[in-house]
């Protein structure tokens, strides 16, 4: 078991921004089914890590969610965008399966016209740079981590 974990993190390290597809449990991007705006099951088979999710949320090279969303919980970070709605209290408004679907594919879960990137989808816009082509913006783990973090954003 520990051996398997070590091998996994090695793969994750090598692939950097892509998911560790080698694992049996991870749901591959093409296999994700969004059903009525929801994805019920975890992409990794387990719950994400909210602390890491908080970092991914702010990181400009990863989620970069702050580019478009305000979030009081990250007030130590300068410059919150206002393209999308504030995510304060987002967990009061959406259930976990809905939030997962929004992260995976905003075009299906929110609207076809949305500016919000789809974070767990292989095929994106035309002329995607070679180094990003055929890759997801976030790994399955990162999606689950961000999701776990979003679930902490409650106001009620």
């Amino acid at each position, binding site marked *: 078991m520990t051996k398997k974990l070590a091998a996994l993190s090695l793969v994750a390290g090598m692939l950097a921004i892509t998911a560790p597809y080698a694992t049996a449990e991870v749901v591959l991007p093409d296999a994700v089914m969004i059903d009525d705006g929801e994805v019920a099951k975890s992409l990794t088979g387990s719950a994400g890590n909210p602390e890491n999710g908080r970092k991914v949320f702010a990181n400009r090279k990863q989620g970069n969610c702050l580019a478009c969303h305000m979030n009081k919980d990250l007030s130590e970070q300068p*410059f919150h965008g206002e393209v999308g709605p504030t995510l304060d209290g987002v967990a009061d408004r959406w259930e976990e399966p809905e939030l997962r679907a929004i992260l995976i594919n905003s075009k299906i879960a929110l609207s076809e016209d949305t500016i919000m*990137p789809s974070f767990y989808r292989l095929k994106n816009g035309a002329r995607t740079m070679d180094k990003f082509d055929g890759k997801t913006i976030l790994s399955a783990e990162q999606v689950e981590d961000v999701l776990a973090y979003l679930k902490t954003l409650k106001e009620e």
Partner: protein
Amino acid sequence: MHRTGKKLAVIAGAFALTIGLASHSAGDPDENSLAIEGETIVTDVKAPADSPLEHLYSGWRFRASETQSLQTDDFENPGMVAVEQAIDQFAMVDGSEGKACADCHADVSDFKGLRPNLPRWDEAKSKPETLEHIINECRTERMGAKAWKWEAQEMLNMTALIGLQSRGMPVTVETGGPMASVWEKGKELYYTRVGQLDMSCAHCHENNYGKMIRADHLSQGHINGFPVYRLKWGGLGSIHRRFKGCMQNIRATPFKRGSDEFIALELYVASRGKGLSVEVPSVRN
């Protein structure tokens, strides 16, 4: 454009429970007006009937006041150094014919009125031409000199000097006749989602101008001020350089400077700014 209306409806529906959208007016362009050396520059004008926008605003209106003020005075405008250099270049002999620009063009102010109409159709070559092409045509075909590279300092200097002659004049670029198909192509490019982040120019510059995207205040993405002096670049940059940067930011492989695609996009984007004043060389962050 219908997209905007539809999108707003979607947002309104989805976020009925969240704070009202009216608060977004906080990010609208500011109320400042621009006069340079006593000359009024139109930085906001009612959009033409066929425009997807209701009102046009120059990018100047979205910049911080410190950046804005650099453009109100030619002694403060860092882009004017390039213009000074271009005045020298204009009189300098170059190439096998032993000629300077000034030998054939007695006064650079003769180019007044040129910038607002570019890019335009080149009858002889049967394709669209930009200011860079026109300058290089004189260099290679009339002076026996080497073409300047698109982003060469000499080229940026010269496009700034020639653009400056039309400062204050409204953009009027021709989109009919032989330019119609080029314009259509540019329009298609403008609305095509590109890159891993999967956005079109319109997602930022049409649907979300006036809002902050992280530290940047989104403008309508007009090109009436190009070449622009960008504080970030520490110098002038061309229209196509800016297009490249915007594509790279969304993880798309940009087209090349001078490519048919960017020339088409330049025409289309120019046409979206019809009526705004030429404000070359503008200053942006």
